[in-house]
């Protein structure tokens, strides 16, 4: 469990990025942190593996205060995939890139080789294994960055804007991929602006604005609240906006994506036909 207790954070320049954040993320949860630019989302996730330490309050990961341990130690548990893969790719080959973290954590070479094989298969990067990371396309680099974290099997997988620069097909694959990882019992926390993507995975949604959490609840409740979403420069998913226009949400339905709409529409049509 990641517990954030009454955390305040001020950057050395004097910018107050987090204010009184209270949060608990349990094992196996699927969480999306959303909010406008500069709301403090990235700052918050950097607290999870100790890259940033709270100015006030504390962050506790599986019972250990982040102030009392090293980033390297915490990273084995909390794997953060940064937004821009170009900030981390450096190795000569894709295999080496993936092996980097494993070598840092001191795993035996045999184990490293085995893990690389399986992660390359899992992410569909197998055919590139001997190539330089810099020959990959933007989307592939992003997947490689994800693979390089996923390979050390952290209990908590934290992703900063995972859908940026991915085409719709890749997004679909990423979605299946994250849901699969989540099914295997891993906690997934993603920071994103991509409302449609969140509407597809229906996680717990945490909304942030100006360094504070303004809402925390299931996607079905938060994403359809247009006023709340707009207050942090977001919009509900298109299907939800459409459903609002039809006053469907008031009748107790929460429509987030095409599948939801399809089911409800099908029911209506059936009722019509039966009558």
């Amino acid at each position: 469990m990641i517990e954030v207790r009454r955390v305040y954070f001020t950057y050395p320049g004097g910018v107050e990025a987090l204010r009184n954040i209270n949060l608990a993320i349990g094992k196996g949860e699927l969480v999306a942190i959303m909010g406008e630019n500069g709301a403090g989302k990235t700052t918050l996730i950097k607290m999870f593996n100790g890259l940033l330490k709270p100015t006030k309050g504390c962050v506790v990961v599986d019972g250990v205060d982040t102030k009392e341990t090293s980033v390297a130690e915490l990273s084995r548990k909390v794997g953060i995939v940064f937004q821009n893969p170009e900030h981390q790719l450096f190795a000569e080959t894709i295999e080496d890139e993936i092996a980097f973290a494993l070598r840092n954590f001191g795993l035996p070479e045999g184990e490293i080789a085995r893990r690389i094989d399986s992660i390359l298969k899992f992410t569909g990067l197998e055919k590139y294994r001997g190539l330089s990371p810099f020959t990959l396309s933007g989307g592939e680099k992003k997947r490689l960055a994800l693979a390089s974290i996923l390979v050390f099997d952290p209990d908590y997988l934290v992703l900063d804007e995972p859908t940026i620069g991915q085409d719709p097909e890749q997004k679909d694959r990423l979605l299946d991929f994250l849901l699969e990882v989540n099914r295997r019992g891993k906690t997934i926390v993603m920071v994103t602006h991509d409302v449609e993507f969140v509407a597809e995975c229906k996680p717990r949604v945490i909304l942030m604005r100006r360094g504070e959490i303004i809402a925390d609840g299931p996607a079905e409740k938060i994403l359809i609240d247009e006023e709340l979403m707009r207050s942090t420069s977001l919009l509900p998913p298109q299907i939800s906006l459409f459903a609002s226009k039809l006053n469907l949400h008031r009748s107790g339905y929460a429509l987030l994506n095409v599948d939801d709409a399809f089911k409800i529409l099908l029911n209506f049509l059936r009722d019509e036909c039966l009558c």
Partner: protein
Amino acid sequence: MLSFLEVFRFRRRDSPIHRMDPRVKALYVFVASIISIIYYSLTAMITIFISTIPLIAIAKVHREWIRSLRGALFLTSMIVVVNMFAGYLSGGLTLTVETVSYAFSMGLRFLTFTSIFSIFFLTTTPEDLSLALEKLKVPYDYCFAFTSAIRFVPDLALEIQTVIDAQRSRGLELEKGNIVRRIRNYIPILIPVFIRSFTRSIELAEAMEARGYGASEKRTSIYELNMKHSDYAIASFLLCILAISILLRVYANWY
């Protein structure tokens, strides 16, 4: 970790010093530097150093100023130690009062330079700097290269920090191992930073060309530098000070 890069970050403020014409400030740097070079006694150095403090106070940049002085402290102490050691060796293995005072004044000279240049760089916007360079007939390409280099320092610092964060999240421990190992630890930081810098400069060049950079021979600026009466007054005052200092040094043999 990257606080030394903070020195280059310009923060917009408003004060009489900030509003002063950059050419007059450049003249100040020139005059003050000449004086600190031609004089060398401890008393003179202390006087010049103290004379920079009111300017810092008027410009309200004392926090940044202290930071740059702190950054210069290590080199300062090196200068003092080396000078003292050299004086000790050449003085027949004895330390005289003159040697010690000379060593300290050399160290103080370095701090004074830091202070003088801080006044200039902490209160002059990159745009003003570029305009001033243009007025001094420096070709615009060089002005632009210079000011954009300064302007990108904060971005670069941010980027280095992000890369460090990303690699630490993959278990990289920068402080681990012996000296060779520690240098090797920086490879995963340096490669992404270099590659990003190249990409960034190519992108910048393309974006500038797309906006017509270099299309016309003669550039005009929205803002023109204009010397105010106060600027002329200060410039004349500075030149007087310079003249008096040189006269005192040459004819009265003050040092």
